């Protein structure tokens, strides 16, 4: 336990001592604020699907569609930059247990994406509130859900990074799973394909965010755990 705490401490220092994290977090906040502003104006004009029911919280969730990309990039870089810069050999010589290293990275990423996700959720809702004719207001529940959603996506990204190692392949797979594939599956509007789309992490997470779907949360959690387990297996198996 103390060894895990030491590993988490080291990963915490590493996270905050490159510029990547700052760029990613600034980008996330900017995207969140801009997206929320845009959707708030759409809501005022009656251009949103959920006509009339839009609140500052739902607007923030919509804006998250853009902002999550910055969080995903941040999370996957925590793992893949080890391989792209060659730091992994140094890191593993300090923390030779690969399982412990992965756990420490997951913990750090989940903590940071949760807290900054909540902040982004609050900020998005605040921007929306300032612009919306109706439906404004602080929505802490939605902000907390956004934090949880991003923490789970963060673990998914770290796990995939450990499995694939390369930043490009990891990002492509992440984007396919979270953003790109579900809409393609949903286009034909066939029950089976829609069902598959519902089981993908992005859509499941979206159901959780919009409707509070517990099933959606469980599916997303299962994806995160599965990615972490797969990442651990491949990290242990392959040479560093």
């Amino acid at each position, binding site marked *: 336990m*103390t*060894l895990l705490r*030491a*590993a988490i*401490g*080291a*990963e915490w*220092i*590493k996270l905050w*001592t*490159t*510029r*990547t994290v700052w760029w990613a977090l600034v980008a996330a906040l900017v995207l969140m604020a801009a997206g929320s502003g845009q959707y708030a104006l759409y809501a005022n004009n009656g251009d949103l699907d959920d006509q009339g029911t839009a609140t500052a919280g739902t607007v923030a969730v919509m804006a998250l569609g853009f902002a999550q990309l910055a969080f995903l990039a941040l999370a996957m870089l925590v793992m893949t*930059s080890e391989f792209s*810069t*060659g*730091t*992994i*050999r*140094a890191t*593993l*010589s*300090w*923390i*030779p*247990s690969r399982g412990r290293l992965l756990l420490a990275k997951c913990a750090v990423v989940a903590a940071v994406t949760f807290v900054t996700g909540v902040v982004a959720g609050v900020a998005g809702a605040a921007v929306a509130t300032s612009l919306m004719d109706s439906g404004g207001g602080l929505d802490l529940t939605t902000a907390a859900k956004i934090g949880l959603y991003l923490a789970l996506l963060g673990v998914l990204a770290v796990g995939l990074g450990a499995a694939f190692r390369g930043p490009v392949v990891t990002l492509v797979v992440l984007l396919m799973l979270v953003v790109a594939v579900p809409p393609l599956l949903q286009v034909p509007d066939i029950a089976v394909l829609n069902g598959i789309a519902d089981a993908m992490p992005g859509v499941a997470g979206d159901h959780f965010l919009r409707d509070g779907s517990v099933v959606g949360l469980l599916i997303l959690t299962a994806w995160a755990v599965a990615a972490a387990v797969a990442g651990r297996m491949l990290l242990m198996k392959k*040479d*560093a």
Partner: protein
Amino acid sequence: MLITLEKLTKRFGPVTAVDGLDLEIRPGRVTGFLGPNGAGKSTTMRMILGLDRPTSGRALLNGRPYCSYGKPLLKVGSLLEAKAVHPGRTGRNHLLAMARSNGIPARRVDEVLEAVGLTGAARKRSGSYSMGMGQRLGIAGALLGDPPVVILDEPVNGLDPDGVRWIRGLMRGLAAEGRTVFVSSHLLSEMQVTADHLIVIGRGRLIADAPLDEIVAGHASLEDAYYQLTEGTTLR
């Protein structure tokens, strides 16, 4: 502390990089690990540190694999590749994270930075370091845990004469303090002046494991001795 290799073997597909190495590396002296490029020196060191998994055989530190140590930096300091540092992180932050991972107090970071003469550049991003500064940062990391074993892979590569002299003195000093110093090189001249004991390999196989004096005895230089020893084995 003792490094033991037991029939250590590593194959990469058809290439046998390390071929049944059976040896012991003892404390209190500088053990030079000599062989031409591609002989398997780095692969052997990576296996000692648990970075590469042996195809067969084992590498042990006082009877235990590296990975079984919870705070390995207190036992083994190593420098494999100086550039294994995130270029965007400062040298000091790199060492602070490293220290934190093994429960080493932060003040030790400033001590080793001072010891390697990197205090002035400690708060600069390591990507801006020269080859020699990168090497010094790597050495600082190797010394961080005040370890009884120090493993260095080609530490003088790319260093200027001052740096070479400095590393040489450092290694001699560490061995004189009773530590196990295991250092690889493909440079005969370097080994001749640094090592007490030599392990020579070629194509992954052990060619010689003897005190430097013994290997050189009867030859004009280590170079002569080496070519006689390795005749045939290093030609590819």
